[in-house]
């Protein structure tokens, strides 16, 4: 098994005045060739910092990192030849130029000739279906189109290794689905040899990734295939409890139960409901429901569910992926 990306005890510290913030704390990962490798973690976990070090935009404070066999500090230019990065929600480019003109520019930046760039644009066009906006100005296209354009830019230089930082951030369901399909296709058709993807969308990581590392507060806390990770909570039971949004303040009562390993709350403003996703270490649901009702919390529905990566995260970290740091 050929390892294309490797970090060894990677540390990154940001200093601001007297204060220090440890964004990465001895991160060690190994990414084999031919896989989509996911980094799953909440905002501020260190995913983007790690990607920026691997793409040579940022220097590590300590430790080593290799991409395609090259050291990211000592052989930075060799790394840059074989990689590209696409970040979700970013809008790099020149608004006054068309999408095609922007891609022509990036072709020159990547060292392609004018003719090669034109051919390459046609190739990525076939893959991403850019026709409808290829000749529109960049400042006039939608978010979904922008993300397709960003991906096209990322593929222009035939990278061996593609870094995708939150590739579907801010996209609607349909566009996100399309981008995910393309990402899968890139690996299946060997267009790209390896993809390292960061996301805080658990479903995205589950759908796309062969191997997942869960990262939190700069530390890798678990690594494995989605199935292997899910097995980490094989002894627990997952329940979804739907309640009224107005009752949500009193839900802290769940902390009284020893069997409640952890829970996350997702609110649905439109329906006026909230869903509590709960990990139980034992079959205690009847007692929990009874207690909730005694506290005048109106339980609307109770369903048992399969283990997801979010539950793994909750089990390991003690809070949900979308919860803010305390």
């Amino acid at each position, binding site marked *: 098994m050929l390892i294309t990306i490797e970090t060894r005890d990677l540390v990154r510290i940001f200093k601001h005045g007297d204060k220090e913030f440890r964004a990465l704390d001895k991160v060690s990962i190994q990414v084999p060739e031919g896989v989509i490798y996911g980094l799953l973690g909440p905002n501020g976990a260190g995913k983007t910092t790690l990607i920026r070090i691997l793409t040579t935009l940022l220097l590590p404070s300590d430790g080593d990192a290799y991409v395609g066999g090259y050291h990211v500090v000592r052989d930075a230019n060799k790394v840059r030849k074989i990689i590209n990065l696409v970040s979700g929600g970013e809008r*790099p*480019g020149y608004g006054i130029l068309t999408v095609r003109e922007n891609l022509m520019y990036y072709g020159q*930046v990547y060292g392609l000739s004018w003719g090669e760039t034109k051919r390459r644009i046609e190739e990525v066009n076939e893959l991403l279906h850019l026709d409808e906006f290829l000749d529109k100005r960049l400042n006039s296209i939608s978010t979904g189109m922008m993300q397709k354009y960003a991906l096209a830019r990322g593929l222009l230089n035939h990278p061996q290794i593609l870094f995708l930082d939150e590739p579907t951030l801010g996209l609607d369901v349909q566009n996100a689905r399309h981008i995910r399909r393309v990402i899968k296709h890139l690996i299946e058709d060997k267009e790209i040899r390896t993809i390292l993807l960061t996301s805080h969308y658990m479903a995205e990581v589950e759908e796309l990734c062969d191997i997942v590392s869960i990262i939190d507060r700069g530390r890798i806390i678990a690594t494995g295939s989605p199935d292997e990770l899910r097995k980490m909570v094989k002894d627990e039971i997952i329940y979804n409890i739907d309640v009224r949004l107005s009752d949500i303040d009193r839900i802290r009562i769940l902390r009284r139960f020893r069997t409640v390993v952890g829970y996350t709350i997702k609110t649905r403003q439109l329906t006026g409901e909230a869903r509590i996703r709960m990990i139980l270490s034992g079959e205690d649901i009847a007692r929990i429901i009874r207690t909730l009702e005694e506290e005048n919390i109106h339980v609307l529905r109770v369903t048992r569910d399969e283990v997801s990566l979010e539950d793994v995260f909750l089990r390991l970290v003690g809070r949900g992926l979308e919860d803010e740091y305390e």
Partner: protein
Amino acid sequence: MSNRLSWFINRFLRPAFGRAYVRIKGGNREPSWILWEILLPLIMITSVIWAYENMGAPEFFKGFVIIGGAMMSYWYNVLWGMGRTLYWEKETGNLEVFLLSDAPLPSLLLGMALGGMFNTTLRSIAVIILGVVVFKAEFNVDYLPLAILIFILTLVALYGVGLALSGLHIVYGRMGVRINELLDEPIMFLSGQYYPISTFPMALQYIAGLIPLAVGLDGVRRALLFSEGIDALWLHVLVLFILMIVFYPIGLRILNKIVERGRMDGRLILRWI
């Protein structure tokens, strides 16, 4: 083709061409540039010439103003324009994408400068046409090749200074813009945009000799207005040549150091500073 030449063409000139393409294509897509780049500078030039006429200054002063006005816009585009555009590139995230490639940063800056020069050339042509047609300024075109040589050496020397100053924008962000503005007026004063630097005390003339534009402007003026040839202007050519070979490596070294520091402390990709 040697590896070095191949690298220079593909990894230096090609990205520079790409960035110049962006500047020229984007700059000319909206016609408002005509107002900023041509009409406003013409008003400035006209007002200075009228002031000289009313003061009864010698006729050749008109030529001074015309050449000063035409060359000063290159100064802005090469020296200040590079840094300002780089700051903008950083804020929009374009710099981050550029730095992901193995193209050297000076190629991006060269592209910005070359692209800026395209519109600047149109401005300069407009200034010269205004001077010749409206104000009847006279130039000796026999010495045009020498003036062009001095002009090109000046631009290359300025490019070296521009590399170093661009780094300020990466590290200091908005403060880099302020530092540029702080340097702007003294350098304008010492370059002698609208008057001959020979009117300065000797000490100031020596200081001005370190500014490529001051030497270049003086050389071009003396060639085109006073019909001085290489026998009189060899020192100008030599000084500019020395400034060129000194400023470029120094500028490059400073820029590389600043970029490295930016990678270390994260400022290279940090925005809104």
